[in-house]
C-alpha cells in the first residue's frame, strides 16, 4: 500500500477500535438485538479464561433414588478428516452456547422469581438436550449446571439444579 493518506486513516481507525475494545463490554439487554447479534460482530475471541458452565444429569427409575451425576456433553475425538465437514464438533459448540445462555438467563432472573427459569426457552432447550442424550435409559432425570474454571477442573460449584423431570 503506497497511499500515505490511506495508511494514516488506517492507523487512526486501529487506534480507535483498539481503545474501544478495551472498554468494558455492554451486553445486549434488548431481546430483539440479541437475536440479531450476528449483525454486530464481536472479535474478542478467547479473551480470557473464565468460569465455564458444565452440564450434568442423573437418572432414576422411581424419581427418588438417583444414580451418580454424569457429564452430559462428552469430549470428542479429533481428526484431520473433519477439516471440511465437522458437524458434530459444531453441534457440540452449539450445545456449549446453549448451556452458557441458560447460565446467563439464570443470572438475569430476579431474586424470588427463580421458578420462572423453568419456563424460559433456554431451560426447555437444555431439558431437550439432556432428554436427547439419555434416550430411554430411565423414567426420571434431573440436570444441573456446574461452574468450572477453565484449566482448573477441581475448582467448581453448582449454580443450578433442575426439578425432577419425567422422560417424555
Amino acid at each position: 500500500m503506497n497511499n500515505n493518506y490511506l495508511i494514516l486513516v488506517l492507523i487512526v481507525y486501529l487506534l480507535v477500535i483498539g481503545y474501544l475494545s478495551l472498554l468494558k463490554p455492554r451486553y445486549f439487554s434488548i431481546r430483539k438485538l440479541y437475536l440479531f447479534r450476528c449483525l454486530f460482530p464481536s472479535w474478542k475471541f478467547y479473551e480470557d479464561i473464565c468460569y465455564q458452565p458444565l452440564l450434568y444429569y442423573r437418572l432414576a427409575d422411581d424419581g427418588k433414588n438417583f444414580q451418580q451425576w454424569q457429564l452430559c456433553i462428552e469430549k470428542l475425538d479429533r481428526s484431520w478428516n473433519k477439516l471440511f465437514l465437522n458437524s458434530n464438533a459444531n453441534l457440540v459448540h452449539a450445545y456449549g452456547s446453549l448451556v452458557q445462555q441458560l447460565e446467563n438467563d439464570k443470572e438475569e432472573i430476579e431474586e424470588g422469581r427463580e421458578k420462572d427459569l423453568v419456563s424460559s426457552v433456554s431451560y426447555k432447550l437444555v431439558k431437550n438436550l439432556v432428554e436427547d442424550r439419555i434416550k430411554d435409559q430411565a423414567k426420571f432425570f434431573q440436570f444441573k449446571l456446574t461452574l468450572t474454571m477453565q484449566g482448573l477442573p477441581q475448582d467448581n460449584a453448582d449454580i443450578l439444579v433442575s426439578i425432577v423431570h419425567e422422560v417424555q
Partner: protein
Amino acid sequence: MEISTALYLTKQIISYAIILQTIELFQIRKSFSDQGVWRWENLKVEFEIFSKLTQKILAFTLKYENFLVLLSLRLVAAIYLIFYSNAFLFLYLLISTLLISLRWRGTFNGGSDYMTIIVLSALTFDSFFSTASDKVSLAAMWYITIQICSSYFISGVVKIRRSNWRNGAALRGFMSSTIYKYNAVSKLISDNKIISIILSWAIIIFEVGFVLALLNPLLCVGFIMFALAFHLANFYFFGLNRFIFAWLACYPALLFCSGL
C-alpha cells in the same frame, strides 16, 4: 492482483464455504427437528417480541420442514454461484444466513457467522451496484479488508492486556477445556509453561501485527500463510473448521488492498 480477480476469488471461496456450512446443517438436522433440541415449538416463544406478521413469516420459514427447504435452496444457490454471478442469489444467501442465525437464537457458530455475513453483505452490495460506479467494488473490497484486519487486531489487543495471556495460563486453560479429548500435542502445550508462553506471544504478536499485511503484497502473502497455519491449529485444537473458510474468503480482498 486485479480487483476483478479479487472479487472472483472471494465469490468462489464464500460459495464453497456456504456449501460446506449447509451440508453440516443437513448432517445435524435431527437437532432442530420437531423432536430435537432446538425444536420450533419451544423456540417460537422467543419471537413473540416481533409483530404478528413477522411472527407468521418467521414461523413459516423456520419450522422444520420449511427450514430444510430454505437450506436446500441455499445449497443450490451456492453451487450456482460457483459458475455464474447473480445479485439476487447473493442477497438470498445473505438473508438465509441471517435466518439460520435467528433459528439458532442469534448465531450458530459465532465468528464464522459474523464473517460470512460481512463477506456476503459486501458481495451483495457489489453485485447490485457495481455497474453504477467502479468505486462500489473498491468499497466492497475495503469493507472486507477492514473487517478482517479488525478481527485479528481486536482479538490481539484484548489478549495483550490480560496477564493470563502474557504468562501462558490462558492458552493452557483453553487447551484443557476444548470439546476434544486430550492427546499428546494438547497435553504438551497445556503441561509445558515455556511452550505455552512462546505460543501465546506468537499469537498476540501475529494478531496485533496482522494489519502490517497491508503494507505490501509480499508481506501480505506471508501473513496469509501464517494465518492459515493459525486457523488450521484452531481447527485441530478447538474444532473451528468453519472459521478457516469464512476467513479464507477475505484474503483476496486483503491481498488486493495491500497492492494499492
